[in-house]
């Protein structure tokens, strides 16, 4: 029998190859077709690359967008896998503790105050973090009871969504930009957004990979985990903290993109037939490839018009979610 490490590197290599191919497809195709070899030469800094408008499209529009899709996909999928382990619930998603509702309220307030404001990501980030912190503090027993934290997150989520709906009703002019943001936006991608979001997301994913080996312990009861040398409460806080940082940054950078956090971990688990904790790297790479391909679909299906990426991921995600539910019922 091969050791799990060998298997994990093999899957990670396969996911990396998929990511590489997804990048090649996404770079070349879009509303404006870019010559493949010209684009490659430009990226590699070789002579004979693209020039003029094509060069601008590649370097200032398409490349940052692909990189942001990769970052956001990696963030949401690895956070989703960690949330599923920590809450021992295969249907947990990264927005579970109110990150989505909090970020939604933050973005709504920013867009209501000033449409097209550059402050939307900052407000969304603060809203997401405040909501998760509120879930933690209100649950009180978060050190010992993941289920209490989960219920607290649901209540906080509903509360923040109620405020958001009220604010939207009072300011119907901002309905369209908020709605567009809620469906997820990678069109806003630029090097500035990439700079700050990549720092937080890569830091969070590094922490998640670092603690991922111990996450198997959280799938046992707290007493069993303790007997195996884990402090379950501390590990839970580190894991949820890093997953929340990744999620809030992803939401702030690209809006609410649903189902990635559920689809990708289950897809990797289905393919590898292994526990997801030990495959966080593979899941992050697969999530990056998944969102690049979903964004490619969003850009090209109704080209030159764009379909919001949230519609694409939900279109794939919702049936997938039902399959997971059904398999879980059958599998026990």
């Amino acid at each position, binding site marked *: *029998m091969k*050791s*799990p*490490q060998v298997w994990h590197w093999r899957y990670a290599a396969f996911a990396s190859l998929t990511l590489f191919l997804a990048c090649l497809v996404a770079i070349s195709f879009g509303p404006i077709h870019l010559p493949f070899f010209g684009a490659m030469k430009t990226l590699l800094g070789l002579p004979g690359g693209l020039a003029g408008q094509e060069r601008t499209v590649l370097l200032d529009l398409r490349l940052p967008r692909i990189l942001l899709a990769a970052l956001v996909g990696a963030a949401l999928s690895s956070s989703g896998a960690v949330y599923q382990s920590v809450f*021992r619930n*295969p249907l947990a998603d990264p927005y579970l503790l109110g990150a989505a509702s909090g970020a939604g309220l933050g973005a709504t307030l920013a867009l209501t105050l000033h449409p097209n404001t550059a402050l939307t990501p900052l407000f969304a980030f603060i809203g997401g973090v405040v909501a998760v912190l509120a879930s933690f503090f209100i649950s009180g027993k978060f050190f010992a009871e993941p289920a209490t934290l989960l219920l607290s997150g649901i209540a906080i989520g509903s509360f923040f969504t109620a405020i958001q709906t009220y604010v939207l009703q009072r300011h119907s002019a901002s309905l369209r930009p908020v709605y567009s943001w809620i469906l997820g936006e990678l069109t806003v991608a630029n090097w500035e957004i990439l700079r700050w979001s990549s720092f937080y997301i890569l830091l969070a994913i590094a922490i998640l990979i670092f603690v*991922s*080996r*111990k996450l*198997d*312990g959280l*799938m*046992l*009861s*707290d*007493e*069993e985990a*303790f*007997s*195996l*040398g884990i402090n379950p409460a501390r590990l839970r806080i580190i894991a949820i903290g890093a997953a929340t940082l990744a999620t809030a940054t992803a939401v702030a950078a690209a809006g609410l993109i649903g189902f990635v956090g559920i689809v990708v971990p289950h897809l990797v*688990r289905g393919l590898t*037939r*292994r*526990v*997801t904790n*030990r495959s966080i790297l593979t899941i992050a790479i697969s999530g990056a490839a998944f969102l690049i391909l979903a964004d490619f679909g969003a850009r090209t299906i109704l080209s030159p018009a764009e379909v919001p990426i949230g519609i694409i991921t939900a279109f794939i995600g919702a049936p997938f979610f039902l399959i997971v539910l059904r398999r879980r019922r059958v*599998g*026990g």
Partner: protein
Amino acid sequence: MIVAENLTVIKDGRKILQEITFTIADGRWTCLVGPNGAGKTSLLKAILGNSRYDGSLSIDGVERHKDQSINVAYVPQIPSIPQGMSVWEYANLGRAKIDGWGRQSAAGTQLVEEILEQTNLSSLRDQHISRLSGGELQRALIARALAQEPELILLDEPTSALDLHHQIAVLDNIELLKSRGVTIVSTMHDITLAAMYADDLVIMQDGQILLTGASGAVIHSPELKRAFENRINVFTLDSGRPVVVAEKNQRT
């Protein structure tokens, strides 16, 4: 040696254990017996070192809350079943304390193989843990505890929810642990089975210890009958084994 002096555990404002004092000897199997709510599981968790307590509780002279270095395995009454994990991976989790999380030593891998053989789980090694029957799962739990190579193992109701056939199979596996010199502390409802397998019995009720001592002595002592309000009878089989039988309440 585990020594408790005036050990008190308070949970949600209620005294679960009330100033109990006892000693558990090394290399023996001690069974905590008592009704639900007697404080058996709370005592196991205190020994594990995972709960706050007043008074003193030490293992080999080291106060429990100060030092967690001793290798203690814990088998819960209701385990949390990890999704997508095979029997082999599950048993291998027991190596985490010695080999480190996510690491595998050649010696550890060899040991896990041997343990799966001993616990009759070799044929199920690639089966998902969530698909095991009750008896198989209990054996997998014990296999994981064995893989941990503990100095002390705590088992919470290891035979509950099992039929007699599987109860005996699991108890035989626990004896396997004892044969390796591991100190065993378990809880059990069934006093007859407890007396048959354990070296020492601790009879508990309402957070207090009513009676403690060698199994043979405890089971035949008049205090045991008094602890059960004279509603049990103890018979001795031809093999010398004691059997405790409950007495039906007489209607007047």
